[in-house]
Each structure stands twice: as structure tokens, then as C-alpha cells.
């Protein structure tokens, strides 16, 4: 059985089941997500605690839209730990978020693939 990292139920509800708009959202997300996620690692490496917390905060709605609860939990934890223990202390959490982001992207590409996937996470 395939493990799904995302659940697009919220997006489906958001766009009232309009598949074309869900796909449009996913396409924009796939274009912009890498740069947005990169901000996390950049700010962590620079030791920018406030910047990292803010970047993690900004990403939270997307974790919600993607139906990725583990990612959401990690982003909340990064924000909290960055402010209390410093950016560098979040290294493992940031790595896990980036890995989850990659897996989510792989699933999203399948969702919008021309022939789709028999095992879509929707």
C-alpha cells in the first residue's frame, strides 16, 4: 500500500470540487514551493531565529491546504524552538520538513499528470 503524505480534501472543498482549479493551485504551488521551503534552510543556516520562525509561520497554511498534518506540526515546532533555543537547534526538524515537502511534491506531480494516477491521494 502506498503511504500518502498529503490529503487534498481541503483543497477540493475550497474549490468546490472544481478539478481544474485544484490543479491550477497545485501547479502554482509546485512552481513556488521550492523557493519558499529553501527560505527555511537558508535562515536556519544563517542562525536567523526570527526569520526562520516567520518563514515557518508563513508555510503553515500550505501544510493545511495540502492536508499534511505532520508537516504542520513540524512547522509549529520549528517556530517555537527557533524563538526559544535558536535557529540552529531546529536543524533536524527543518530537514524533516524539507523531506516531507519533496515527497508531497512528488505526489502532487502525480495528481496533475495528464493521465493521473490510479493511486491519487485525493
Amino acid at each position, binding site marked *: 500500500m502506498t503511504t500518502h503524505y498529503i490529503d487534498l480534501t*481541503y483543497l477540493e*472543498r*475550497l*474549490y*468546490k470540487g*472544481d478539478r481544474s*482549479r485544484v490543479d*491550477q*493551485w497545485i501547479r*502554482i*504551488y509546485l512552481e*513556488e*514551493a521550492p523557493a*519558499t521551503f529553501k527560505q527555511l534552510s537558508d535562515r536556519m543556516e544563517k542562525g536567523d531565529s526570527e526569520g526562520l520562525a*516567520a518563514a515557518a*509561520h*508563513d508555510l*503553515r*497554511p*500550505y501544510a*493545511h*491546504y495540502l492536508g499534511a498534518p505532520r508537516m504542520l506540526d513540524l512547522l509549529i515546532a520549528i517556530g517555537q524552538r527557533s524563538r526559544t533555543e535558536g535557529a540552529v537547534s531546529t536543524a533536524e526538524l527543518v530537514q524533516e520538513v524539507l523531506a516531507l515537502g519533496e515527497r508531497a511534491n512528488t505526489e502532487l506531480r502525480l495528481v496533475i499528470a495528464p493521465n493521473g494516477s490510479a493511486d491519487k491521494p485525493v
Partner: protein
Amino acid sequence: MKQVIRLALADDQHLFRKGMALLLRDMADAQVVLECANGEELLAGIKHTPVDIVLLDLQMPVLDGIETTKRIKQDFPQVKIIILSTHDEDTMIAQLMELGANGYMLKTAEPDEIDTAIRSVAQSGFYLNDAVNKAMLHGLVMKKQVKPTFNEIDPLSERELEVLRGICQELTTAEIAEKMFVSPRTVDFHRNNLLLKTGARNAAGLVVYAMTKGIYTP
């Protein structure tokens, strides 16, 4: 003909703006006429492109949502503001409502709530959800931080109280007028008196007044 609600979106996150524009595309009586990446762009845009409601993010570069709210209320008082944020702290929500925001929602709100909020703000001038009610009660009642500008000297008349309760129930001017068997102009007259007497700046402020004075309980 039904008037179209002109919307502006201000959020530094392109994905969120585009996602919201996609969502609002099929809202029959609303149209996104302006998209901006920060408060400064928004203020410049409003000068040339009139809008009715701004969906405003808080955390933005150049000019953030808090400063933008202050500037809009000062320079474009007719423009209504719905804050769309990831911040759910009571203090933040209460602060923005105090500054004159007409509604406050989380970016993770249920899809239907966005539609409801826009229509409510367009019709009655405010949208209060559970988060805002909680923040206002927490900030204004629990901490006893009742707005000092409310005028206690001039009591509200029975008719004004009726209008105030109608506003709290999110009734439109026409609906209040029908309920009271008066004209919409008379309701507007009472509404203006309410603003003068309470020191509130908008319908949301009137609701705060009503709640803190026990005139209305949500």
C-alpha cells in the same frame, strides 16, 4: 441590478493571492480588482482602483497589515477590511478590530466562511466569527479594558437600542427598517447617533459596545 463587490487582495505570498483569486472567481457578485504584495502597493492601488473590501494579510514586507489598516482607515475610511492571517492570538485579533478592521479570519478558515465574511462585511459592515468574539470578550471584558471613548453621559434611546441589536444580529439597514416599520434613512439616522454617542468608529465598534454593556450577547 445587484452591485458587484470590488475586492482587493494584499498578501506577499503569491501562491496565497492566486489561490484566493481562484476561489473568488466564481463568487457571482464579487470581483477581485486589485492584487498587491504589500501595504504600500495596496495604498497606491486604491487611489486609482476603487475597492469596497480589502482582504489583508498582516505579515508583509515594506508596509505590514497593522500599519496598512491604520492608513486605510485614515485615508480611505469607506474601504472595509477583512484581515486574513495565520495569527490567531487574541491580542492580535483585538488590536486589529480596535484599529477598525471589519472582520478577522484565519487563512485556514473553512472555505464557506470566506464567502460569508465578504457578504456580511458588504451588507452589514462587519463580520464576527467565534475567534473575534472570543478575542473581544477576552480583551475587553475579562481584562476590563473597555474602550474609554464610549460616551456614558448621553444614554441610548429605545429606538437606538433596537437598531443596535439589529446591527449585532447582522441585519442589513433594510432589514432593520422593515422590522422597526421605519425607513432605511431613519435607521441610518439612528446608526449615526449610535456612532456619535458610543464613540465607536464602525459597526464592529458598535457590536463591541453592545457586548461590553450587556445589550447584546452573541
